[in-house]
């Protein structure tokens, strides 16, 4: 359970030395309680206090890094149950299962699919993040060969090794030293051996429990063996079990401060039916999965899941914005209509969607209004005649148009005169107030 500022204050030196940058120890304690300061900023804190406070001030869900370099994935550190409360912090990783029973060619092909999965979506590079190499054969040599293949074919892609056999784990991890890999498969029968291999390879240990009781037991035992970095699996496989266990785990970690489950969760969405797999993976994205294991790479499935992850992990307090520029919808010619709106993403999506639907090619100027919708932006002085005219002038769009005509949203009809004054030679036309009036408006002009 998180400590209050006063509880923390009692353990500080109370010298008010200001070395931490705060005027008093109490002020520093308050900052610590709000997680806005870190204990190592205090040079004089006692070892005992450090231990006690360190434990209490650790994030309720331990941060874990999977992989290294620019393909590394951060997990954990979540602070809320619902995304409207505060931004979900670290987007989950998608991992694709590759069995060591596949032929080398088939395994290599799957790795290549993972490498080719990267797409650019609304300015972010998204991809299948990790390989889940599974010791289905039970043969240590086969798992090792697969790990070696991954190191050759997909260097830099984070790897999760899945086995119940510590010797197989050790051999496979030998090819992944310094890679921040995950060793998944630690259970009641092999914990000590697996913990040893994970420690030797500096890998995160993946606990594979049968239920939440066993999970809490195993993480405590692993901790006793000196393991700090873990990812956890409660054994949930059916969608309803995933929702139940993930919800209990998140609540226990955040609201009860129950440390034994304060780790990122690994979920398995693998299904024969790929459409169902997509939906179960979607559930894990929305409800607290940190690693989601999939059975295959499919471009359509990736696109849907990447988009969902992007949606769920956006900051609810910052309006989603679209880049300021003039977007072409369809293939507009010199005579096509030219419209303007603001850069709130919903405004853009709705306006561009209506234009796309009515199949009248247009140019749509999207002006930076700090993510506000048309009326709000106008009221806040971000969508004014002078700003609009400056944007239009600087865009150099004039040269592409046969007739200099700009269609403005009906809600800001009041601006038409002022824009005409500031844009000599331009005709300003007032469009419909709502986007759903655009198809009729545009078709009537065609």
């Amino acid at each position, binding site marked *: 359970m998180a400590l209050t500022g006063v509880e923390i204050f009692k353990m500080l030196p109370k010298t008010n030395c200001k070395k931490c940058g705060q005027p008093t120890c109490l002020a520093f304690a308050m900052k610590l309680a709000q997680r806005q300061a870190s204990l190592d900023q205090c040079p004089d804190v006692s070892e005992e206090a450090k231990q006690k406070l360190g434990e209490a001030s650790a994030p309720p869900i331990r941060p874990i890094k999977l992989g290294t370099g620019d393909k590394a994935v951060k997990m954990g550190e979540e602070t809320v149950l619902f995304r409207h409360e505060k931004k979900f912090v670290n987007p989950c990783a998608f991992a694709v299962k590759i069995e060591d029973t596949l032929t080398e060619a088939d395994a290599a092909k799957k790795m290549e699919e993972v490498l080719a999965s990267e797409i650019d979506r609304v300015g972010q590079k998204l991809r299948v993040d990790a390989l889940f190499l599974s010791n289905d054969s039970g043969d240590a040599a086969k798992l090792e060969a697969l790990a070696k293949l991954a190191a050759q074919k997909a260097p830099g892609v984070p790897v999760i090794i899945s086995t119940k056999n510590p010797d197989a784990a050790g051999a496979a991890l030998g090819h992944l030293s310094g890679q921040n890999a995950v060793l998944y498969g630690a259970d009641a029968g092999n914990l000590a051996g697996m913990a040893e291999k994970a420690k030797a390879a500096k890998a995160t240990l993946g606990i594979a429990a049968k239920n939440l009781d066993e999970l809490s037991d195993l993480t405590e035992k692993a901790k006793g063996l000196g393991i700090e970095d873990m990812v956890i699996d409660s054994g949930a496989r059916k969608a*309803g079990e995933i*929702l139940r266990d993930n919800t209990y785990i998140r609540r*226990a970690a955040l609201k009860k401060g129950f440390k034994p489950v304060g780790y990122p969760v690994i979920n398995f969405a693998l299904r024969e039916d790929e459409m169902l797999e*997509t*939906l179960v993976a979607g559930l894990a994205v929305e409800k607290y999965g940190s690693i989601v294991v999939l059975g295959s790479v499919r471009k359509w499935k990736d696109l849907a899941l990447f988009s969902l992850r992007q949606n769920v992990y956006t900051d609810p307090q910052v309006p989603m914005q679209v880049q300021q520029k003039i977007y072409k919808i369809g293939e507009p010619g010199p005579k096509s209509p030219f419209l303007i709106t603001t850069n709130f993403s919903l405004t853009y999506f709705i306006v561009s*969607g209506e234009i*796309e*639907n009515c199949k009248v090619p247009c140019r749509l100027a999207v002006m930076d209004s700090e993510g506000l919708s048309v009326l709000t932006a106008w009221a806040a002085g971000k969508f004014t005649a002078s700003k609009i005219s400056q944007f239009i002038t600087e865009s150099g769009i004039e040269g592409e148009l046969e007739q200099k005509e700009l269609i403005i949203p009906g809600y800001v009809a009041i601006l038409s005169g002022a824009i005409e004054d500031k844009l000599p030679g331009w005709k300003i036309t007032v469009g419909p107030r709502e986007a759903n009036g655009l198809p*009729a408006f545009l078709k009537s002009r065609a």
Partner: protein
Amino acid sequence: MPFTPPKESYNGKIFELGLGNGEKAVAIGGENVLSFHGFEGSTPRKPVIALEVQDIVPDDWPQTVREVYKDVYGDPVAWAVYCQDNLGAEAIALRLAGTHPDRGDISAEQAAETVKKVLAAIKVPLIILGSNHAEKDTAVLVKTAEAAKGSNCAIGKAQEANYKTIAAAAMANDLKLIAMSELDINLSKQLNILITQMGFDREKLITDPMCSALSYGLEYTYSVMERIKLAALAQNDPVLQPPMLADVGMYVWKVKETQAPEADLPEWGALAERGIAWEAVTASSFLISGAELLIMRHPAAVEAVKKFIAEMEV
């Protein structure tokens, strides 16, 4: 170490709402916990999925989904019967798209005739939707409500601009009413209050907080739904206790991801699966965030969502 499940219980409960008559009647809502949280409370009813039917040829639907209905569209009765008999629809949502002034301007009287014929031909519950033209919907929904009297249909959507007439028509003909506002918990609350102040029974309301598609504002609908459900349960706010609708199909099947051929965008993969996945992911997300009733278009997406619902039962 034993794990004590941190269960949540709430004072509030979602109203249970019935649609239709006879053996094919359905009911939604009734739960006293968040969606699919049967592990800590009561979830007596499964979500219901209505298949969408239109009164005109759906020439604005992309090929992937239009193809499914090519033998029946143009005839709303045949289309509705096909959905019920061949696709196993639990409910039909008849969208009177052709009444829109820009899409044929079919008269309210003619729309009412269509409703009568469809009602006579199907046994499953009907949801009657206007064309989302606030002014025309007033006339169309009043006439169609009369035609649907006694059928225990839902009609909609009542919005801020036209709720008075539509709510009065639903009340006079003993129908359920869909109240839609735009992506804001307070607007939803306000509209539900205005409608109940007219004497409309809040237990006959369905809240539509406005849908959106994956990648096109999904997170807004998702979070508004979660907030409405939490207010209904944790704060026991009766105004927000009607079950919720997600009108998924019409938002999904107009976005680029459900239309662009693979040849144009090879990195997006197969169009057929992509479209179905887009509708199914959008739909299942809104079930997770709190919707009890869905309106969808592609039967393969419906099938996937039904399998998902079955798996959500623990």
